[in-house]
């Protein structure tokens, strides 16, 4: 059975461990190399799991590993929403 870290992009614990072994040992690179957190959940569920795997693997407390950059709109938002922006403000 496979244990998924990232459901949106179907990334498993095994994939993460392999990437760490290959030398991707910072969160931003792991995220992009594996695409963890780049799906519609925007990293909400998977990035904390990724963080804890990395923390255990490196023996570094999670708060020392930083966090990935968070990009707007944070949640997938219908494009039509932005057509309603007032332009004179």
């Amino acid at each position, binding site marked *: 059975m496979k244990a998924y870290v990232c459901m949106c992009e179907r990334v498993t614990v095994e994939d993460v461990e392999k990437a760490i072994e290959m030398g991707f040992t*910072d969160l931003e690179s792991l995220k992009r190399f594996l695409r963890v957190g780049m799906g519609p959940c925007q990293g909400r569920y998977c990035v904390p799991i990724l963080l804890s795997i990395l923390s255990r693997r490196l023996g570094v407390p999670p708060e020392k590993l930083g966090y990935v950059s968070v*990009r707007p709109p944070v949640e997938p*938002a*219908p*494009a039509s929403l*932005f*057509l309603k922006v007032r*332009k004179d403000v």
Partner: protein
Amino acid sequence: MYDVVIVGGGIVGVSLAYRLAEEGAGRVLLLEKGYLGGGSTFRCAGGIRASFTSREHIVLMKRSIELWGELREKLGVKYERSGYLWLISRERDVERFKEYSRVHNSFGVETRFVDEDFVKRVAPYVDTSSMVAALYDPLAGKASPFDAVYKQFLAARSLGVEFAVGREVDSVRVERGEARGVVVGNELIPARSVVVAAGAESVFLLRRSGVELPLAPVPHHAALTEEFGRLFDPLIIDVETGAYAVQTFHGHVLMGVEVEEEPFARPVVKLEFLEKVVSTWSKWLTWLPGANILRYWVGYYEVTPDHHPILGPVDGVENLYVATGFSGHGFMMAPVVAEELAEWIKSGKPKSEEAARLTLARFKEGRLIKELAVIG
């Protein structure tokens, strides 16, 4: 002692590292202060074309396109010659693009006007009801920035290049008109040649080393939709606004359009951009308002006064090379830049006369190069 030290792990630095390794250029070290690709490279659209209007751009980009093909074959980098399509909705733009096309054709870049049926074939989910003409470039295409950086990084590393990620270079050590290496914290890392490929930040790094570059970081914005199946193959451009959209290998649509920005401005997100990009593209992608926007980010174009890169040796400082100032076209140019610089470092001369004309010295000597088509 390193043979070559490269500052900056964007597409340019990583491509050069791989090229030097392949050519057996000795001991090579690349220093990256953040993470590989974390500058402009991972914010870019991945578009690749030779359909420019200056001889320098056309000749170098044509070679770069050949090299992109080699990268796909050798390393399996995701790269496709899926074309560029300029969508024209105003009669008055037609003549201008005819003229561009004549220039392209005279250099062997076969752009041509195409009819609605053709557009529907290569771009089934583009609405053509406001189209009066369309120019197609079959040689152009796209590559995945992630794939291009990571595959070249892994290949370079396996060939012996050393990567110091998370290490910031403070300055280039220059003594008696000669670069001796780079300074990191209190440490001097000695090198026979130093290459600054630090993107928009090259201007600050070199200033600390006594070299002034005419280079300005200018913020550019991009937004990404959720993923879809095949929508359109070419990168598409709305000629009226200069906005572009490209479907990534993963299926997302990545879109950009210009909003007002000052040189050296801080890259901040603007609601105004999202409004403009969605309204511009809704004209051609009528389904867009119902799609979701997944992410939005801002990155820098590293812009020079003539929108051409600054390449090669720095006048008055031996063994110091620069590769920056791509003005929005650095991703596509990286393979040929790597080839030219590797040759420059090895033999003191670049491969092509076009590259030779792009040195920093041109600004002092007043040899600026004209380029008309600065988009995507």
